[in-house]
């Protein structure tokens, strides 16, 4: 940082003590600026060392690492149980068992029975008259 100072002419009546104080203030200001510049570079280096993907974080002009930016997701936003429509509630899983072979037969009353067309549970018993 270039600093331009115009010192008072030698003929001025500024005392040596005040001149020394002025130089001390200038030195302190210069030291403070140098320290701030070091602080600016530190976070960027830290982020690089953490191997954070560029899309997951951002560094501001001031060198501050911001919170990771959440990527857009295809999943729907989380909802609470109170605002879930009734039609989206998962139905109860079907009973886990072996499938019954489909069959059809003519009953004694002349009607046709087809297992796959029957939506009610079936109590099926094979029997012989002997």
């Amino acid at each position, binding site marked *: 940082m270039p600093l331009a100072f115009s010192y008072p002419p030698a003929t001025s009546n500024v005392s040596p003590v005040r001149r020394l104080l002025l130089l001390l203030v200038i030195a302190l200001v210069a030291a403070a600026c140098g320290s701030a510049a070091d602080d600016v570079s530190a976070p960027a280096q830290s982020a690089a060392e953490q191997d954070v993907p560029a899309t997951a974080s951002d560094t501001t002009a001031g060198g501050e690492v911001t919170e990771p930016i959440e990527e857009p997701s295809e999943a729907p936003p989380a909802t609470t149980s109170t605002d879930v429509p009734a039609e989206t509630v998962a139905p109860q899983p*079907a*009973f*886990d*068992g*072996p*499938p*019954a*072979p*489909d*069959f059809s*037969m*003519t*009953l*004694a*009353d002349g*009607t046709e*029975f087809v*297992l*796959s067309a*029957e*939506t*009610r*549970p*079936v*109590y*099926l*018993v*094979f*029997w*012989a*008259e*002997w």
Partner: protein
Amino acid sequence: MDAVAQDYSPDDIVFLAVAGKSSPEKSAQRAAELFGERITWGYDDAVWEPFGSPYQPYTILITGGDVIVEEWYGPRDADSLRAAVDHLLSVG
């Protein structure tokens, strides 16, 4: 089986007895003695084959989605049958 079947509504479950390994005439005579109106039955040897031509009596409980819930050979007492039917109705 007949007494148990009368405890359940026809809207809820089908009781179907498949006769075989004999003759339709003899089976009809025996069915008239064994089954009331709540049990439907028919004679068809071919239906036994998909189920492995089982010994009899052989009972299978099937959900409305055609999944086997339980199966067994031989007779069971009425309370045991009711428990089995209740379980079938509870799962579908």
